[in-house]
């Protein structure tokens, strides 16, 4: 009788009592797809790179980012960031400034001179890429990183495609394009400038390419018929923007009318202001909120003195005036003519009514299908021609830089599979981490950081970049606003709130494991998990 019998017990002995048998439901750790990742056209793992950025590990963040998209600095300026629109934080206060952090990472890469990992194993295969726009660059990068030999054929004298010839400098400084492109070239990608491909198959045969990716941009402006006294004063937006890259800047006059409601219309209108136009008026047939242009770009344009005339169509253009007809929206939201007309002074009219791709090079490619001006491809971006893939503006759908990059990536994966003689199958996707799965109590209230904006006088007179980048502290702050929707960020809440100590912490980076010997299935961990990374499910029979 060392200690009093039964009344006195040795510590911790209740471990012999396996309370897991009480359970009728069990918690299970899951990874859910965060809405940012789900909506990124380039398929970036945004949350993952924010995770690294939160800790100030910017290079790691950049490397995760560029696993999917090599053009971080460019994206950080021109991506229309659908991720932010989908961001769950937007339902709490404001969405995370993902694009700003991306730009910070892209710029940091340039400042720090980070390079992509060198190719270690050459596959011996060669792929030709037509076009050095975002789709082509993306495809080239991904193909090269898998060890294939890549040659980019670019018709223009400089690389970048629509990045360079479709986006004004004040949005995307040319040095940024240059450095992002150079980083890809440095991987061992061959860039042939000023080489327009006329016959794809011939080129492939001549140079022994095993596959081809077509990434030609939409560089032909759509025209509309406007009875015009003087046709010279009517130009198209693509042409204007393209001309901006040449030695002879376009002459648009004092009063410029831009016709259209897309982003390109805005770009031209703002360019016109910078070229000295006193009046730069966008004429659009519907209302402002119906404009396809992004709202913040419209706002920036208005700040710079661009004027908007909505519910109007141009019916005629004379030497010094144009005639517009007032429209009204019908019940379906479509504009209908009213028969009311007015005239406006105009030195020039720029049409920004959409663009087409020059598909001439495809004429001699049998087996390729073209419908409504775009090349038909399957989910792997494969055309009907074996070994020939296409992406970007050519294949239809939304025409943005980010979409093009995504096409390039997906096509590269398919080409890689093709070169190995297999068929590429995209991985299945996790269930979406919707807002209702989060417990947002755990995130402190933190409003979005504002990016610095160039002062208005310089915005109206120079092509300096309008929107600045975040400094390191702000970028860090912004990254830390991420709620890590659907994916464990090791906040230890499950580990803490379990009344039965049935959560085993595995250590930094290793997350957690349930100890089902003791878990009673109360579900506290599920309810309290801030990011919705635990699911409760019925106990298996």
């Amino acid at each position: 009788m060392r200690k009093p019998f039964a009344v006195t017990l040795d510590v911790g002995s209740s471990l012999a009592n396996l309370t897991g048998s009480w359970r009728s439901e069990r918690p299970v750790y899951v990874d859910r797809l965060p809405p940012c990742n789900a909506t990124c056209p380039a398929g970036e793992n945004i949350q993952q790179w924010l995770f690294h950025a939160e800790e100030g590990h910017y290079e790691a963040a950049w490397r995760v980012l560029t696993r999917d998209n090599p053009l971080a600095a460019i994206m950080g300026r021109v991506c229309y960031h659908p991720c932010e629109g989908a961001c769950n934080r937007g339902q709490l206060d404001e969405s995370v400034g993902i694009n700003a952090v991306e730009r910070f990472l892209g710029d940091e890469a340039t400042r720090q001179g980070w390079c992509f990992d060198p190719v270690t194993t050459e596959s011996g295969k060669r792929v030709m890429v037509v076009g050095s726009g975002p789709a082509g660059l993306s495809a080239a990068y991904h193909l090269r990183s898998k060890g294939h030999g890549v040659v980019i054929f670019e018709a223009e004298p400089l690389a970048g495609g629509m990045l360079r010839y479709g986006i004004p400098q004040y949005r995307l400084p040319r040095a940024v394009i240059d450095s992002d492109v150079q980083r890809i070239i440095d991987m061992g990608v061959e860039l042939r400038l000023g080489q327009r491909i006329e016959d794809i198959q011939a080129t492939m045969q001549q140079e022994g390419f095993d596959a081809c990716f077509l990434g030609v941009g939409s560089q032909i402006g759509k025209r509309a018929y406007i009875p015009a006294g003087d046709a010279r004063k009517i130009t198209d937006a693509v042409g204007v923007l393209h001309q901006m890259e040449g030695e002879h800047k376009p002459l648009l006059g004092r009063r410029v009318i831009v016709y259209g409601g897309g982003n390109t219309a805005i770009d031209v209108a703002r360019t016109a202001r910078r070229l000295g136009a006193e009046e730069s008026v966008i004429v659009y047939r519907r209302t402002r909120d119906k404009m396809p242009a992004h709202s913040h770009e419209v706002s920036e344009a208005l700040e710079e003195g661009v004027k908007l005339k909505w519910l109007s169509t141009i019916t005629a253009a004379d030497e010094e005036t144009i005639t517009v007809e007032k429209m009204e929206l019908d019940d379906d939201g479509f504009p209908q003519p009213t028969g009311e007309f007015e005239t406006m002074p105009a030195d020039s009219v720029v049409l920004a009514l959409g663009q087409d791709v020059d598909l001439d090079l495809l004429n001699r490619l049998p087996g390729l299908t073209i419908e409504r001006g775009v090349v038909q491809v399957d989910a792997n971006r494969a055309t009907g021609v074996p070994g020939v893939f296409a992406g970007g503006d050519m294949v239809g759908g939304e025409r943005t830089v980010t979409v093009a990059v995504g096409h390039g990536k997906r096509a590269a994966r398919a080409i890689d599979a093709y070169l190995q003689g297999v068929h590429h199958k995209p991985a299945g996707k996790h269930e979406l981490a919707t807002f209702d799965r989060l417990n947002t109590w755990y995130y402190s209230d933190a409003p979005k950081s504002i990016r610095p904006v160039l002062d208005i006088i310089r915005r109206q007179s120079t092509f300096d970049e309008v929107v600045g980048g975040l400094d390191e502290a702000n970028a860090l702050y912004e990254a830390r606003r991420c709620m890590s929707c659907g994916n464990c960020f090791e906040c230890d809440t499950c580990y803490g709130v379990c009344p039965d100590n049935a959560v085993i912490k595995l250590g930094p980076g290793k997350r957690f494991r349930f100890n089902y010997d003791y878990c009673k299935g109360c579900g506290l961990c599920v309810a309290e998990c801030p990011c919705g990374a635990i699911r409760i499910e019925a106990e298996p029979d």
Partner: protein
Amino acid sequence: MLKQIEGSRAVAEAVALCRPEVICAYPITPQTHIVENLGQLVKTGELSNCEFINVESEFAALSVAIGASATGARAYTATASQGLLFMAEAVYNASGLGLPIVMTIGNRAIGAPINIWNDQQDSMSMRDAGWIQLYAETNQEAVDLHIQAVRLAEELSVPVMVCVDGFILTHAYERVDLPSQEQVDAFVPAYEPRQVLDPAEPVTIGAMVGPEAFTEVRYLAHYRQMQALWLIPELAEEFEQHFGRAAGGLLRPYHTEAAETLVVALGSVNGTIKDVVDQLNDEGVAIGCVSITSFRPFPARKLRETIGHARRVVVIEKSLAVGIGGIVSTDVRMALAGAGIPVFTVIAGLGGRAITQASLHDVLTKAHHDALQRLTFLDLRHDVIHREIERLETQRRSGPVAENILRELGSVADHIG
């Protein structure tokens, strides 16, 4: 060292000699002088390395002692009467946890009616609480029993109550031989707990025990008390060798060998009984007496050996089991089961009623001649009772019994006996 001191002071000094480490004090008559003296000894530094804690109730007093004892300190407290009842829950708990706390009971009646004078109803109410109960006959024995109690408690890991008749002993100035610190230190070694709350070797004390083990736990409590039946005499013997005087033991016989009538009692009344026994012997009555020191554990075998030859046994007890009679008598009858010896119960000294030689002489003489009722209330005032019973039978609103009787008797100090 011989001293002429108050019993409470003597107990306090004896307790202090045992080097208690935590003393919990809550005042209740007639225990007050004991803790007052201990408080003084701590404050003057005569008793060093001791925490004296003035608590807010007897319940807290014993509870603090429980915490202290479980943490390895020698813990002591004292109480009486209502105080003992108020701590009743903790009394059972201390023994259940096997904590060797020593507690002095300054025996006193239990109300209502409230009564501050001596009887032994209080400690009797806790006789089954798992504590060893030792009853002191004199203040000398009170001193000696406390010293033995500490040894006894700690060797068995069982708490011990030392019961000392309130006022009669606690407030009596008598000659007491107090041992030296060296003598006591040699007899009472430092406390070596069986279990202790210590982060270096953590244990859970006070688990919930269900039907699967509760009987065994209770059996072991009984087993430990039964062990005391041999340890108590052993300690008494060792004590005598050490201190040169007899004290303690299970029971103490007086002129028992040739006695036909044997008187059994607990505590200080044994002194008066012995004087009466002497008188009766002088008158040719073959009578003796036994003073029971250890009431729990009850020395049934030893008692039977001592009184089994008697023609009759008279138990004089200062407590009453309402509805049946004697408490001590019941245990004595059990010890004598099958022996065919009649056991008379004399309820005496309730609430401080003086137990006089004259009354004892009278009742024992009657007993010796088998002229006593089996249950007798010594010096019961039949006239008072009859009047009150009559009142109860005739009036629905007969009023409070105690106050009715007091109104008839006048104030207490008017009477000497």
